[in-house]
Structure formats: structure tokens, C-alpha cells
């Protein structure tokens, strides 16, 4: 692995995130190797080539060995890995899907993940997300590409209690979204619940 | 009793406005559409050309469409020669209109500021100002401190998201009271013997070869020597009946008004980058326009997120507006052409004249287009000021591209 210093767009927000209460925890998930996979038809051969099942149900994600496979569109997925380097992942996936007429593009740095946990996370997200996040509707395994505030995001539900989400945001919007989230959480950080 | 609030009421309307005649069977000229353009055209047909055997057919109530729904901004500081030509002619007429109509139209030349927020805004603004000067249109470029002098409530601090880098200023621009303008034209036309016929929707046309012989309406068939289409957002409904294709798309455009407020905003401010345009009308209410809804729509209503964005822009640019209250929102239908310029003139039918595609510019053009369209209809020859706005330009490619020119709309 490289000795070069790695940095991510939210370094400057770390301490602000640390001051948040347990009801709204934000932790950054940087440096995750991720490829954007494009593939027309998805059949059993995909697992054979790729080693994971790409979810075919819209707005869902599934764990994929050391990462996640997120549905982005009828022919598009995000496939992440916490064990491979971006180059390794792209090379492996591209080799796997090329014979199937697919393509793969390293987008590891294109987005950054924020893990949002706590009892108030839904309330914070509801301040800028128009889709229904009720756990009955948006439980573990659900995902959505939508807008949060004025940023485009990919939103993943990690629990059935509505208290654990991952927000993937374009790196250049990360600072905006971080400020937006801190502002949205303010009323939960300094006052008792209404 | 304490004194009335100064300026908080409007001049009285006259005791007589218009007749409500039954339609005759035949007219020399039938104007379809009883909005500002149709009524102004009727007035100038009578006044400039002595043509009074005219009917104005309105499917609803007179001036109940965009004329009743716009934000009444009047300016002529457009970029291209063709545009500033017709709008400047209109502005000159506005300056004498109160006298011409004998109606208190409350034309207030309080100036219009078009704010620049980016370096490209500045380039586009200077380009427009310089073009205006060479075309004899009053215009100047103002630095932020000069903007503050003219409109102190504009946020000219440098630490906002899109700081104000300056503005173009047209001192002769301003606002008027829309109903008063429409009713002034209507009254004059009615006095001249022109029939204003309401609740009269055109449902079809009768034709002979490439002439239209009359219109079918919900109040019976009416024979017509010449027909002028002044239906703005509903133009396509009429041209479809005639089998004429016109490259306009009708979109909802929303506007809103606040409660009456003490004077805080002495001019008109428009901004593209931070999309907002606002003036404080005669009684003290803030009048604002929102952005055009993206989709085609004839519903005279738009989506509320457009209004919310509008309010964010307003509070960003005018922090003191924070606790002003939104009293009423409404929507109109703007007919937008591919180059954001109007389409006026002849059609494949030799006695049918087209006037549409004004987008958000219709109100300010009212007297100008009424004048020029009356001339066009009376002489069967496009008035020089509308000659560049032919339907044909989309074939030759000789557009008058006002988006390209980034002139602020509305």
C-alpha cells in the first residue's frame, strides 16, 4: 500500500462530528474501493463471474463479501470492497463483466460515505429527504438515490429500526452535506427532545 | 379620526368601463384573446387606423389571464437590437399612456436593477448596457456601493453565497398597475365602438382556401375579415385548429404577493443567479415572480417547491424580508419560444396574424405590440418593429436568441 498521505474531504469536520450526541452519530467511512458496474441483463452467470449477486430489485442493496452491492439503475450498480485497492477491484470486476457486455469504472473517490446512527437520525434525514424513511417502508436492505438537502445522495438503510443509515455523497458536496447535517442535528444536540 | 395611510390605497376606477354587447354576426377584424395584447391592439386599430368594426373575443373575463397574473415589470434593456427595438417603442408609449388612455395606470418609473453575481454575469451585463446605450436605451452599469444607494435593502455584503458584483440599471424602467392598464385599453376600445365579448371561446375557424372566413365560438359563428391571434399561452390551441405549427411551449409561471408594508424597496430588483425578481407595488405589497415550472402546463398553477426556492432567494438577497408574509400565490401560463423571443406576423393564412411567444415579456410589451400588431393587421404588412420576429426565422436560423444573450427574463 502507498506511503503517500491519504486525505478525505471531511477531515476538517471530525471534531464537530465527535461533539454530536448518541442520538445522532455521524462517522465518516472514507477510502472504500468502489466500482460503478454497468451490465445489461443479470443472470446466474454474473455470480459465477463476479462472485456476488447484483440486486435486481430497484432501490435495494445487498452485502457483497467485504463490501456492498447497491442497485443504482436497471443496468447500474455500485460494488464496494473493503479488502481490495481501487485498482484491484476495478481490474477484477471489469474482467468479470466485460465478457457479459458490461463495464466497470473505479469511482472510489467519486463519493464518500457517512454513517448515521442513533434514535434521531430519521428526524435529521426527514429535514431534507422527501422519501418515506419509516422502517416498515425503508428497512435494512433498502437503498435510494435521491436528494438530501440540495445534494444528490445514495441512501442505504442498515437496520430495521430506522436508526442506522449510510449516506453516500459526491466528494465535492461532502462539506456542504456535513454542514447541513450538523445544522439539522443542532436541536437534538443542545435541547432535550420536545 | 386619524389620517388614512399614505399611498396605501389606489385611485378610483371610473364609473363606466365597457359595454357588454351581444356579438354581431360579422366584423372587419376579430381579435382572439381579450388580454392586454388583444385590448391594446383593439385600441390602436381604432386610434391609429380608424378601424372600429372590431370584436375582441375573450373565453373568460377580460384581462383575466397573464394580464391579471404578471408582476408588472416594465423595461426595455434587452440585448439584441430587435428586442430593444420593440420594447423601447413600448416603453416610450408607456410614458404617454396615462394621458392617451385617460386612466390612472400608475406607471412608476422607479428603475430596474439587474444584479450580477458572477464574473460571467458581469460580462453579460456590461455587454447589455453597452448595447443599450448604442441603441438609445437608457442603461448604466453600477458597482455594488451604487446598488446599495439605489436599493439599500439589497444584501451587498461580500460574505454571502453569491455576492452582488454589480448591476445594470435602467432608470426609465418601472412598474404599472396591470388591471388599470387593461381596463384603460378596454374602456377606450369600447368607447370607440369595438365590441368586447366575454365568455366567448373560439372553438374553430371557417376557411376558404388560404383565407379564414370566420370563427366558431361558444356564442355562435362570427364572420371575420381579418383575424389576429392574441391568446398567449393558449395560442397553440388555436393554431392547432388552423393546422399551423408554432414552436411555442406553454409553461406555468408563478408569482406571489406579501401583505402591505411600509416602503422599503424603492425600485425593481431582478437577479438570475439568485433567481428572484421583486418590486414593492403601489399599496406597499411586495410582488415577486418565481421561476418557470419546467413542464408544459395549462393549469395556471405550479409546484410549491418553486415558491420555496424563490423565498430562499428573496431572504438571501433581502434579509429584511424574513418576516414579511406570503399572502397569496398564483400561476399564469407563459408561451415560450425556442429563442425566448416573440413570434409575430403573417401565417400561412393570408388574413390571419400571429402574436405569441412573449414568454415573460408580454406585459411590458403591451402598448408596443398593440401598436405594431394593429399596424400589421391594418396594412397587411408587418410593422418594421416586428418584422424580425417571423415564424420563418426558425427555418433560416436567424434567431433572436435572448437566452444566449443571458438577458434576465421577466
Amino acid at each position, binding site marked *: 500500500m502507498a506511503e503517500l498521505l491519504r486525505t478525505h474531504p471531511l477531515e476538517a469536520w471530525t471534531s464537530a462530528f465527535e461533539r454530536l450526541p448518541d442520538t445522532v452519530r455521524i462517522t465518516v467511512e472514507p477510502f472504500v474501493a468502489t466500482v460503478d458496474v454497468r451490465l445489461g441483463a443479470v443472470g446466474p452467470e454474473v455470480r459465477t463471474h463476479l462472485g456476488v449477486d447484483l440486486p435486481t430489485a430497484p432501490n435495494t442493496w445487498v452485502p457483497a463479501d467485504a463490501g456492498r452491492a447497491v442497485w443504482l439503475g436497471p443496468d*447500474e450498480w455500485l460494488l464496494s470492497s473493503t479488502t481490495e485497492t481501487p485498482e484491484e477491484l476495478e481490474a477484477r470486476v471489469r474482467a468479470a463483466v466485460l465478457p457479459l457486455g458490461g463495464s466497470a469504472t473505479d469511482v472510489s473517490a467519486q463519493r464518500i460515505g457517512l454513517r448515521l446512527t442513533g434514535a434521531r437520525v430519521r428526524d435529521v434525514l426527514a429535514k431534507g429527504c422527501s422519501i418515506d424513511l419509516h422502517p416498515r417502508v425503508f428497512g435494512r436492505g433498502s437503498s435510494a438515490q435521491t436528494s438530501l438537502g440540495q445534494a444528490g445522495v445514495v441512501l442505504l438503510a442498515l437496520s430495521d429500526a430506522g436508526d442506522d443509515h449510510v449516506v453516500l455523497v459526491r466528494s465535492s458536496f461532502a462539506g456542504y452535506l456535513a454542514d447541513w447535517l450538523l445544522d439539522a442535528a443542532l436541536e437534538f444536540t443542545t435541547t432535550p427532545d420536545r | 379620526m386619524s389620517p388614512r395611510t399614505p399611498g396605501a390605497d389606489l385611485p378610483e376606477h371610473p364609473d363606466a368601463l365597457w359595454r357588454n354587447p351581444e356579438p354581431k354576426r360579422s366584423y372587419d377584424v376579430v381579435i382572439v384573446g381579450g388580454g392586454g395584447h388583444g385590448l391594446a391592439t383593439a385600441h390602436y386599430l381604432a386610434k391609429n387606423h380608424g378601424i372600429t368594426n372590431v370584436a375582441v373575443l375573450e373565453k373568460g373575463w377580460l384581462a383575466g389571464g397573464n394580464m391579471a397574473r404578471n408582476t408588472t415589470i416594465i423595461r426595455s434593456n434587452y440585448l439584441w437590437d430587435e428586442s430593444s427595438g420593440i420594447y423601447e417603442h413600448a416603453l416610450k408609449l408607456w410614458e404617454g399612456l396615462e394621458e392617451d388612455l385617460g386612466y390612472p395606470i400608475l406607471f412608476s418609473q422607479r428603475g430596474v436593477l439587474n444584479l450580477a453575481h458572477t464574473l460571467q454575469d458581469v460580462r453579460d451585463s456590461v455587454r447589455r448596457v453597452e448595447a443599450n446605450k448604442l441603441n438609445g436605451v437608457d442603461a448604466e452599469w453600477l458597482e455594488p456601493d451604487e446598488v446599495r444607494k439605489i436599493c439599500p435593502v439589497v444584501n451587498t455584503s461580500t460574505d454571502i453565497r453569491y455576492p452582488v458584483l454589480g448591476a445594470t440599471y435602467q432608470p426609465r424602467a418601472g412598474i404599472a398597475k396591470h388591471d388599470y392598464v387593461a381596463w384603460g385599453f378596454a374602456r377606450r376600445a369600447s368607447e370607440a365602438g369595438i365590441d368586447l365579448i366575454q365568455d366567448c371561446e373560439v372553438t374553430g375557424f371557417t376557411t376558404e382556401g388560404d383565407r379564414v372566413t370566420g370563427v366558431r365560438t361558444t356564442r355562435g359563428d362570427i364572420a371575420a375579415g381579418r383575424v389576429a391571434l392574441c391568446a398567449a399561452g393558449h395560442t*397553440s390551441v388555436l393554431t*392547432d385548429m388552423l393546422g399551423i405549427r408554432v414552436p411555442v411551449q406553454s409553461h406555468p409561471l408563478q408569482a406571489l404577493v406579501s401583505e402591505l408594508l411600509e416602503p422599503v424597496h424603492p425600485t425593481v430588483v431582478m437577479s438570475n443567479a439568485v433567481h428572484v425578481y421583486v418590486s414593492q407595488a403601489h399599496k406597499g405589497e411586495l410582488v415577486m415572480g418565481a421561476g418557470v415550472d419546467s413542464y408544459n402546463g395549462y393549469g395556471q398553477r405550479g*409546484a410549491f*417547491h418553486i415558491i420555496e426556492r424563490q423565498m430562499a432567494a428573496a431572504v438571501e438577497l433581502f434579509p429584511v424580508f424574513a418576516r414579511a408574509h406570503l399572502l397569496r400565490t398564483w400561476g399564469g401560463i407563459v*408561451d415560450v419560444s425556442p429563442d425566448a423571443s416573440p413570434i409575430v406576423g403573417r401565417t400561412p393564412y393570408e388574413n390571419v396574424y400571429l402574436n405569441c411567444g412573449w414568454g415573460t415579456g408580454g406585459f411590458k410589451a403591451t402598448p408596443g405590440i398593440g401598436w405594431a400588431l394593429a399596424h400589421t393587421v391594418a396594412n397587411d404588412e408587418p410593422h418594421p418593429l416586428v418584422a424580425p420576429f417571423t415564424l420563418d426565422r426558425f427555418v433560416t436560423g436567424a434567431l433572436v436568441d435572448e437566452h444566449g444573450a443571458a438577458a434576465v427574463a421577466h
Partner: protein
Amino acid sequence: MQLIPCPWCGPREEAEFHYGGQAHVPYPDDPAALSDEEWAHYVFFRDNTKGRFAERWNHNAGCRRWFNAVRDTTTYRFESVYRLDHPKPVTP
């Protein structure tokens, strides 16, 4: 704020979508063969129907798919949405 039924993602608020104008206006097979007038009609002229209108929409804040819809331009009601490779539904 309307809900628009994306054929893939289901109902989402209209702000997530981009309007694409009239549907079923294909790029000409051989533009060079067209007269200036025919070309102008492709480039600039679109129907402006009052009432039921077949349009293109793109779910650009979501799955980024283009799709077609039949919508009433007076009520704004979406009567149907259909994928690009599907024919315009026959409606009464």
C-alpha cells in the same frame, strides 16, 4: 409537489425529475436529406397539446433513466408511464 411514478424507482417528488418535452420525436435517419424547413421542425417545433400529452422524463436525481409518460397538461395528472422501448399506450 407532485409525485411522478418512475418506472424503476416508483413514485418520487417531481423535483427529482427532468422534463424532456414531447415524446416520440426521433432523430431523423438522414438529416442531410431534409429540407431546411423539415430540419427546423425537428429542431424547434414541438406539439404544445392542451390535455393528454406524451412526454419524455428523466429521473435525474434517482436512477437517471429516461422514460415516457402520458400526462394531462391541464390537470398535470400522470395517466401512465412507460419505458422507452415500449409503445405509447392506447388510451381511450
